[in-house]
């Protein structure tokens, strides 16, 4: 990191431009909205984490002795619902994406700033319904809401939770819409598609999934609600309905949803690897297209969640082969990231540590996906802790590492402060150790045959469960550490220069924190992606003089030239 000796922060920036609660709650500045989202998702992360703690405490012993079975079932359901819909799906896009997309493309804001704010309010309304559902006892169907248990038998708050998820889905759709339109129409002059940062490519692909997939879960929840309230019969075999139809409809969205969770993290990793090695990502175009390929193929594989559901064997084979197809672009990304390190200038700062962690975890998570896509093996390990371990490696080991890595990397830009590097490295280490200890034993448990969603289990599974719970406690501490020092740094951290990392990208060519309108003038891009140059050449203040002489800047506000 650059020496911080004589950094003078900008006088006016987006955080102090206006004061007062109203200026935040009615803001249309994408950067402030990103911070509003940061508050919300952090709250839900710790709420979901609290449920996880209780789950792991219960699983320390083979008997069900901490809570009742009914309570445990509600705990794991709410853990899933809160983490998936209120943390993992919005976290990177709505926090980092909202903050960075306009900055990275040289725009003053997203295409629809008011819709951006609306999306945050919609998120909160949905969250409110879910919180009410939790407070009035929660729901016990599993976050997957399979019928007919959820439509007919469960006495939990299915409808309330469903409404919460339904409403929050619109927040997702609006965010995706905003990103797509912004990226298409508001790129700075000279910023062609293949000069875009890979973070933008990832978020573009993610947004495609958001707008195409989310409406399907909306209609699925609607049908579930109709079935539950009015018994219309869609999923009821007694009148000719099909309970497995629910599974198809549910997974048609929920599988692409996992790519909504991981693609943005991959975008972050691309930025971290490129900037922390000061090199263009090896195979830039391949990585860009891989993001799109993942988005497209992601819609074609939902049936791999139904291999043991009495779905036809031949359908199973089709979904299996497609699932391998979707794994390939992810593998290509990992190889390209690794190749980027070759002859790079590699920094060991915390964001890079998180990037390394991501790659390690993603390899395990991704390869175990190959196990699950293999039909013969899946029959044995599906619905066991093997699957639980697999998706936690991707979502926690992947997405959350990407989120934390990105948060640390852009923290100076977002807050204008530097976080304490030593503590941050320590925190990353704790997370790494805690995570492995928590989730690796679960692969073994799964293969041994321990089913998921079990609150009591045969005694031979105890040792591995204890290991997992021990790891969870370490992981929990590991997440608290950054929480503490990041908040500390907002007040007491040293001021950050515009470009502490010597990184490439338009967001680093404005002050830390940026002014409300992001750039004094719309930048004109004349360089290729990740064309690293000495720090002074990439600094906006000197570049601007160059621009004045050689290029016509695009005028601000519509005045002609």
């Amino acid at each position, binding site marked *: 990191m650059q020496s911080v000796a004589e950094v003078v922060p900008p006088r006016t920036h987006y955080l102090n431009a206006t004061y007062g609660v109203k200026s935040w709650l009615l803001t249309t500045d994408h950067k402030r909205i990103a911070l509003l989202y940061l508050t919300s998702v952090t709250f839900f992360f710790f709420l979901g984490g609290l449920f996880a703690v209780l789950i792991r405490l219960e699983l320390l012993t083979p008997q069900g002795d901490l809570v009742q079975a009914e309570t445990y079932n509600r705990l794991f359901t709410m853990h899933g619902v809160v983490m998936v819909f209120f943390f993992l799906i919005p976290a990177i896009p709505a926090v980092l994406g909202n903050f960075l997309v306009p900055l990275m493309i040289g*725009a*003053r*804001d*997203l*295409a*629809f*700033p008011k819709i951006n704010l609306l999306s945050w309010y919609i998120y909160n309304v949905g969250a409110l319904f879910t919180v009410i559902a939790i407070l009035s006892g929660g729901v016990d169907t599993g976050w997957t809401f399979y019928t007919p248990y959820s439509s007919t038998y469960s006495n939990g708050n299915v409808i309330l939770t469903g409404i919460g998820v339904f409403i929050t889905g619109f927040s997702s*759709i609006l965010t995706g*819409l*905003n990103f*797509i*339109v*912004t990226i*298409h*129409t*508001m790129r700075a002059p000279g910023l062609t598609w293949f000069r875009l940062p890979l973070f933008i490519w990832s978020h573009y692909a993610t947004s495609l999934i958001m*707008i*195409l*997939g*989310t*409406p*399907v879960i*909306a*209609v*699925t929840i*609607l*049908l579930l609600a*109709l079935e539950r309230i*009015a*018994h*219309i*019969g*869609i999923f009821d075999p*007694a*009148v*000719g*309905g*099909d309970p497995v*139809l629910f599974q198809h*409809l549910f997974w048609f969205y929920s599988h692409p949803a996992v790519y909504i969770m991981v693609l943005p993290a991959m975008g972050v990793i691309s930025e971290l690897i490129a900037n922390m090695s000061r090199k263009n990502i090896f195979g830039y175009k391949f990585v860009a297209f891989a993001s799109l390929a993942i988005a497209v193929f992601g819609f074609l594989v939902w049936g791999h969640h139904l291999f043991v559901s009495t779905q036809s064997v031949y359908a199973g084979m089709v979904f299996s082969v497609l699932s391998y197809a979707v794994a390939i672009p992810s593998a290509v990304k990992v190889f390209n990231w690794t190749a980027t390190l070759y002859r790079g200038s590699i920094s060991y700062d915390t964001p890079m540590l998180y990037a390394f962690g991501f790659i390690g975890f993603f390899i395990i998570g991704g390869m175990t996906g190959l196990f699950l896509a293999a039909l013969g093996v899946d029959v044995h390990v599906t619905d066991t802790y093997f699957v639980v371990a697999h998706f936690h490696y991707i979502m926690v080991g992947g997405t959350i590492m990407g989120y934390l890595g990105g948060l640390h990397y852009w923290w100076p830009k977002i807050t204008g402060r530097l976080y304490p590097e030593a503590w941050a490295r320590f925190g990353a280490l704790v997370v790494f150790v805690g995570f492995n200890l928590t989730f690796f034993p679960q692969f073994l448990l799964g293969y041994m045959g321990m089913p998921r969603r079990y609150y009591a289990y045969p005694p031979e599974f105890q040792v591995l469960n204890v290991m997992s719970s021990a790891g969870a406690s370490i992981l929990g501490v590991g997440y608290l550490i950054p929480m503490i020092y990041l908040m500390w740094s907002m007040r007491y951290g040293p001021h950050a220069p515009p470009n502490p990392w010597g990184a490439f990208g338009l967001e680093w060519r404005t002050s830390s924190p940026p002014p409300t*309108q992001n750039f*004094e*003038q*719309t930048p004109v891009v004349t360089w290729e992606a990740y064309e690293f140059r000495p720090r002074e050449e990439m600094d906006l203040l000197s570049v601007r003089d160059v621009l*004045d002489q050689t290029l016509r800047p*695009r*005028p*601000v*506000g*519509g*005045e002609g030239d």
Partner: protein
Amino acid sequence: MERSLADTHVATSVGLAHHFDDVEQQREAGTLGMWAFLVTEVMFFGGLFLAYILYRSKYPVEFAVASNSLNVTMGFINTLVLICSSLTMALGVYFSQVGNRSLLILFLILTMILGLTFLVIKGVEYHEKYVEHHVPVRFQTYQFKWEPRASEARGAREESSRAVDTGHVEMFFWLYFAMTGVHALHMIIGLGILTTLVLMARRGRFTPEYHSPVELSGLYWHFVDIVWIFLFPLLYLIGAHLH
């Protein structure tokens, strides 16, 4: 040359938002946004259409017989009403493009009247179904009941004396109510949008340079119309041969 944002924002164009560089960019963004939104609507309705395809292929006879019980005349009138409303909407858009405020308002209001007519006729149809106990719910006080009608007996003979399973008939009806209900909800939202447009037009917000809200709302209205064009034959006309 430091130019602050405030200086350059002076009265450039009515309705140009500060974060866009020019009206062209704003128009492009708005149009792309509306089209992307309509794609999400296609996916939303798509789920229902998928369920329709599945259950119809499983229970073709029951679907034909149930569809036969719908009021085709009313459905047909509604179709004409909606097509005309798309015409009036398109005319409204045209007049906004040429800057004719009074005709714009006239055609927006005509569109609303036609939309309202559609909803009223729909309401009458729903009431008919309610009275015939064709609403597929199971409450204490109201249950779905299917009584085969005389024409169905004739039709049934034509279908090689196959009788129908009321459960499968019920499948048709929940699809009918779900699909037309969601569509009607979109119509109501459309009426709200049109009301806003009328109010904006009366205040003189639209000019030949800036009228994209009218165009974009037109897109939305046409989309809702097209959905109905698909719904009508799939729901109303598949049992027509049974008369």
